[in-house]
């Protein structure tokens, strides 16, 4: 009970102090502006949505304006006709952008830049028709008969997307949800990371831990930053919604309310999952400079999760897509992606949320233990393994020997296995998604992940191997660390 009150105090402090920071407010404003621009930009740039200005000069049949209007109406565009007697004046109007296209002597179109294909089709068709009318008149066909013959047929065009049964709007929605989840989980997870290191490096953590158990402190911090993230996501989404409704012409992606609600829930779950890991890893570093490298494996993992979820947009019904949307590591992003594609059965998100919650429970225990042991330990960045064993064994004595950069390249066996695995996964993903680039990216990310993870865990080679690798690298630039 007291623990809950304490955690809430910690969360409130995070909310208050962070929302007061100018950098944070700036990021909120920038995000809102970026989203509003992203929503409004198509309308602002796309002048084709409005009325088209068409200039006519030279010999022009009297029927042309009506023909243009009829053709334009058939494709849902409005037109306005401007007559010019002087060619130079008319061309200047094109150059100034006052008119979109100039029709000269009914046989030449002039554009300022690249031709607007739709408008070109409209005008060309109108020219053909008015020519037909003229010829018909000369051969004695009446205008009424001709009008019946030439009545434009309404043709509709449908975008069917890459996947049968889904619209491109579903794909857009899935894409936006995937990207937003990835960005917010990464951003706010990183905030937890830097917050933990900040408390550790300023040494305030010892004062805090004398008052509040480590687990409550970490929980409060994660909750506070999470609420801040939720607030920013909500504000940004509202801004986007308002922009979309105010600037009328935008088609909102066909997101169903249920999918949005699940996406918010999965943001909370995904954030909780990764923030716990970030918090635990942050406690390993003593200085802000070391935090990024301590959290390296998870950052890489998140990118991998993003790629996998992104790939799932293209084939949401396959077994591998179903699998990644259930596995807790990838589920928080992949499941909303599949739901946006309408590929998940009603019970699937419930299963995924349940599994993810269970994983969070386990991670809180593991991460809490790492955090509690490591957060009071100053000195070089700890290895996970050391932090895990810290309670039972040494504190001040362990980390000294681990200052040599041990990238995976030093362990030939591990390197070969990791490389083979990465290649196999890259090949598999490439074949499954039908996209070589995604395959290569996934493979590279996997290799980087294994590399970082082995460094983070502190795989210790035999002494000989260590010495050999050190001497073999003697002329290469290597990571130097300041020692305190």
């Amino acid at each position, binding site marked *: 009970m*007291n*623990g809950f*009150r*304490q955690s809430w*105090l*910690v969360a409130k*402090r995070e909310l208050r*102090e962070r929302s007061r920071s100018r950098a944070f407010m700036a990021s909120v404003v920038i995000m809102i502006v970026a989203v509003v621009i992203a929503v409004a930009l198509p309308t602002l740039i796309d002048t084709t949505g409005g009325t088209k200005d068409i200039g006519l000069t030279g010999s022009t049949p009297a029927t042309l304006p009506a023909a243009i209007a009829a053709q334009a109406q058939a494709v849902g565009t409005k037109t306005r006709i401007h007559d010019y007697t002087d060619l130079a004046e008319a061309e200047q109007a094109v150059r100034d952008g006052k008119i979109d296209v100039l029709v000269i002597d009914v046989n030449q179109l002039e554009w300022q830049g690249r031709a607007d294909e739709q408008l070109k089709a409209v005008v060309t068709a109108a020219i053909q028709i008015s020519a037909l009318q003229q010829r018909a008149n000369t051969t004695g066909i009446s205008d009424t008969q001709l009008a019946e013959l030439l009545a434009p047929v309404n043709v509709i065009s449908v975008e069917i997307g890459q996947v049968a049964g889904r619209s491109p709007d579903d794909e857009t929605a899935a894409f936006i949800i995937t990207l937003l989840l990835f960005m917010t989980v990464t951003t706010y997870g990183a905030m937890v990371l830097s917050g933990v290191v900040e*408390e550790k490096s*300023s*040494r*305030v*953590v*010892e*004062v*805090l*831990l*004398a*008052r*509040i*158990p480590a687990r409550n402190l970490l929980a409060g911090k994660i909750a506070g930053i999470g609420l801040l993230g939720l607030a920013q996501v909500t504000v940004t989404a509202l801004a986007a919604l308002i922009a979309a409704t105010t600037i009328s012409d935008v088609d909102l992606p066909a997101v169903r309310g249920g999918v949005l609600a699940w996406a918010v829930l999965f943001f909370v779950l995904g954030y909780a999952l990764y923030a716990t890991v970030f918090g635990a890893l942050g406690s390993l570093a003593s200085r802000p400079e070391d935090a990024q490298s301590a959290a390296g494996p998870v950052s890489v993992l998140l990118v991998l999760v993003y790629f996998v979820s992104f790939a799932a947009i293209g084939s949401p019904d396959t077994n591998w897509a179903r699998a990644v949307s259930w596995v807790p590591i990838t589920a928080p992003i992949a499941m909303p992606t599949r739901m946006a594609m309408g590929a998940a059965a009603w019970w699937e998100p419930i299963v995924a949320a349940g599994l993810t919650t269970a994983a969070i429970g386990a991670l809180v225990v593991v991460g809490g233990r790492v955090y509690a042991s490591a957060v*009071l330990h*100053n000195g070089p960045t700890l290895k996970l393994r050391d932090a895990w064993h810290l*309670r039972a*064994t*040494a*504190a*001040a*004595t362990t980390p000294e020997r681990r200052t040599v950069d041990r990238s995976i390249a030093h362990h030939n066996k591990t390197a070969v296995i990791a490389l083979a695995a990465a290649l196999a996964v890259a090949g598999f993903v490439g074949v499954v998604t039908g996209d070589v680039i995604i395959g290569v990216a996934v493979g590279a990310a996997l290799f980087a992940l294994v590399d970082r993870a082995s460094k983070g865990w502190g795989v210790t080679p035999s002494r000989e191997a260590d010495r050999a690798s050190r001497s073999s690298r003697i002329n290469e630039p290597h990571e130097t660390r300041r020692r305190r």
Partner: protein
Amino acid sequence: MSGAALEFAGATKRYGSVAALDTCTFTARPGRLTGFLGPNGAGKTTAMRAVFGLVELDAGTVAWQGRPITPAVRTRFGYMPEERGLYPRMRVREQLLYLGELANRSRSAVAASVDTWLERLGLTTRATDRLDALSHGNQQRVQLIAALVNDPELLVLDEPFSGLDPIAIANMSELLVEVAAAGTTVLFSSHQLDLVEDLCEDVVIIDHGHVVLAGDLEGLRAAVPHRFVDVDYHGAPPDWTSIVGAELVEADNGHARLQVAHTVDLADLTTAIERTATVEAFSYQPPTLSELFRHAVAA
């Protein structure tokens, strides 16, 4: 339980092959200043951290008023760690309010306490400044208030005097005496033995994680079976070696310091000295804390 408030019983903590605490046993009593002494690396900080659960003991216990220390009990304690640290970018008053509330005090009670202490330490005008805008000395004061905001029953201070100027030391001493007089149990570590001797009723001396001397300072000094005699004289120095039961500690022109058994007959001693010289001043004292310390730690 009256008497002992803070009680270490056989507290042991090992880091690998090094014992930071080795069956460490002592008590600190309410309303008294207890000086916690020991050479560097003796285990003082580890012991203090153990009070706050920052170190998990391998064996033994630390108890408060006869009961194990739970997180709820801990919120009634105040702690100033050796590694000073607060949020650098947080405003002074808000920071103190936050730390007080974390100790499960109501906001109004904490606010009253914070304002009183800010006033008392002359920081009222800096209350809304960010901590990192304050001078080093003022930051130390804020750190002290952070340990006091919850009106603690037990105050633990790790090296509270380190890095303070003489005036700040005097202020800090006065404040600690006052806090103890109000009934608080105060345990603090220090290397400034003269200061501890002036301030503390009780001392605990620890070496290699083990308590080598503990108790009431006067009692400890009196219990030592030898005394020191300081003599100022003029005339020829006597043959010190001929005086039975006395051992010369130091001698220079006109002054000598002797170590004698506490059973020595002072009249015999003065007679022996006055054979060759005239005594101007004569003092007979139990050993100082420094001497107790050196003796205890060297043993």
